[in-house]
């Protein structure tokens, strides 16, 4: 539903100073097309984890914008990523979402490609093409750049994009290493489901440590999430439909000890510190943080982080999961949950991680059932011409966030805040301008105050 937002004037849509976002960006079709081009057509996007494709011929399909990409393990152990489209007439080469194969044969005319993407077979090529076809020209199209960062396979459609290490930067590498440095493998089974909402609302929520006490109140109510008498916070006048004051069930952590990280290209992190998380009964003993290789990989700031990270635009990393938010349309987003267990996990620890993943997030998760409802209804209201004019607010702790630039990372120590969300939208506006990579890097350099 186009609302005539001028995608060339995106600065008017996001105000870092006022903490206000123009809600029309959550359903505008022109904006969405620009996002596919300027963001999903350029950024490094997550494809899969290397443990999903351990053997030669193993493949896994992931969308990059509207392109479908096959990530394939090669005979020599390396990994390649191809567009899942036959170079002859465009048919999807592979219709399975994952599996193992010796070769990819197009079911239209039989053009066949080996694991490396070389064109190795053309039926009746001598009789019909009479030797006129140069097979070397028609191998599968590889994505312009692909990289395996510590087991996490990313790709970009922009040949001019900086290397993955530079795109991630110190902060982004730290976010991935918070999971990767422990030594992890993917649990079979990627949860996939569709929410009728805009993808940016799902990313906004990654950093939102304010909503849990209300949105997920039922999870606290039944004891699924632990509560603490000591951390009971102020209902602030909130009341239910019977006019009764809402009594918040004190959550753990209580939001008083949080850390946000904002970084170049829009990567960010927000949530309780590792210290605050350690007080959570479900957090388990974080012995992995004591291992020398982990300490070296994640650095002194990483050692303090206990919240949620997002690699811009849509790769959310938690302690044991990665959630991709795949934009399908302005008002439709697929959610893909990848779950990790430590390679050295005991059977009990592995089972506990899997159980927690299934029962917290995912469509039947005790928390995410409610999240999808919020994002879908927020998206729907942006179709109203007047409702869409009501700004989306990210004013919490606005102007009070002192940014400490240290160890190559920009962090903010505060109570629960909305800095990481606001930073994400600020970066979104810069991406939408179609800047050069250098200019984009400069435009997303963290300020001293947010």
């Amino acid at each position: 539903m186009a609302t005539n937002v001028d995608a060339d004037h995106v600065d008017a849509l996001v105000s870092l100073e006022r903490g206000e976002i123009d809600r029309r960006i959550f359903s505008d079709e022109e904006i969405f097309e620009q996002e596919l081009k300027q963001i999903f057509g350029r950024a490094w996007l997550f494809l899969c984890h290397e443990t999903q494709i351990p053997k030669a011929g193993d493949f896994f399909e992931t969308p990059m914008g509207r392109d479908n990409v096959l990530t394939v393990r090669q005979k020599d152990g390396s990994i390649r990523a191809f567009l899942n489209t036959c170079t002859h007439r465009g048919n999807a080469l592979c219709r399975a979402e994952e599996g193992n194969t010796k070769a990819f044969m197009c079911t239209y005319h039989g053009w066949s490609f080996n694991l490396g993407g070389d064109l190795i077979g053309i039926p009746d090529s001598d009789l019909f093409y009479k030797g006129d076809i140069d097979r070397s020209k028609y191998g599968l199209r590889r994505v312009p750049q692909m990289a395996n960062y510590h087991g996490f396979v990313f790709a970009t459609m922009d040949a001019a994009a900086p290397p993955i290490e530079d795109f991630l930067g110190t902060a982004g590498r730290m976010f991935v290493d918070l999971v990767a440095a422990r030594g992890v493998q993917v649990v079979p089974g990627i949860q996939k489901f569709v929410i009728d909402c805009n993808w940016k609302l799902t990313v906004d929520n990654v950093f939102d440590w304010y909503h849990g006490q209300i949105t997920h109140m039922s999870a606290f109510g039944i004891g699924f999430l632990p509560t603490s008498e000591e951390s009971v916070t102020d209902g602030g006048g909130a009341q239910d439909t019977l006019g009764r004051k809402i009594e918040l069930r004190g959550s753990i952590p209580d939001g008083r000890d949080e850390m946000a990280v904002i970084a170049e290209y829009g990567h960010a992190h927000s949530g309780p510190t590792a210290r605050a998380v350690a007080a959570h009964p479900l957090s388990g003993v974080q012995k992995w943080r004591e291992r020398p290789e982990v300490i070296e990989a994640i650095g002194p700031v990483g050692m303090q982080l206990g919240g949620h990270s997002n690699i811009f635009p849509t790769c959310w990393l938690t302690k044991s999961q990665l959630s991709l938010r795949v934009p399908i349309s302005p008002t439709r987003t697929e959610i893909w949950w990848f779950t990790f267990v430590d390679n050295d996990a005991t059977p009990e620890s592995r089972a506990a991680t899997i159980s927690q993943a299934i029962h917290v997030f995912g469509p039947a998760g005790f928390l995410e059932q409610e999240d999808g409802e919020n994002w879908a209804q927020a998206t729907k209201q942006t179709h109203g011409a007047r409702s869409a004019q009501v700004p989306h607010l990210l004013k919490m702790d606005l102007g009070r966030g002192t940014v400490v630039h240290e160890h190559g990372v920009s962090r903010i120590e505060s109570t629960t805040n909305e800095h990481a969300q606001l930073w994400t939208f600020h970066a979104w506006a810069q991406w939408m301008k179609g800047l050069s990579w250098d200019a984009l890097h400069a435009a997303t350099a963290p300020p001293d105050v947010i």
Partner: protein
Amino acid sequence: MTSLQAETVPGAGIDQRALATMVLRSRIETFYYDEAALLDAHNYEEWVRLFSDDTHYFMPIRRTRLRRELHKEFTQPGEMAFFDDDKAILVGRWKKVADGTSWAEDPPSRTRHLITNVRVVADRGDELDVESNFHVYRTRLKSEEDSWFGCRHDVLRRCGDTFLIARRHILLDQTIVLSRNLSTLF
């Protein structure tokens, strides 16, 4: 005319084994219809009581696979799933809705559970393996509509003149779940 005579004389000529099978299936169908009525009436407290204390309520993830790899279509227990609940978690799902703050179900969804194609696959005396198909239809709020088809592989444990669900594996006919959530039970 022998068949007509058989019908007119009670019990004569009737295959007693076939009759027992029909009676058993009828009892199971009645059990399933009563169960569906509880779900559609949002009576989860009574519904949870239909499960044994050692039950396993499991909905695996289904994946589009090549025909020759179809044995890997579903994830297995111990891998990721959409539901992987013991009795305590199922009780938690009832209590979550009963808490009054389960916003995804307030206002509640309207659901209709249609159960068909009931087949007794094995009868071990104390327990039965029963497969059934379902169509669960859901509408929410104004225009929101979901439709789920699939089959349930149950282990029903004989318990007096009724049953307890000792295991339920739900095989949904979707790979990407085409809904914003699964706040509905199957």
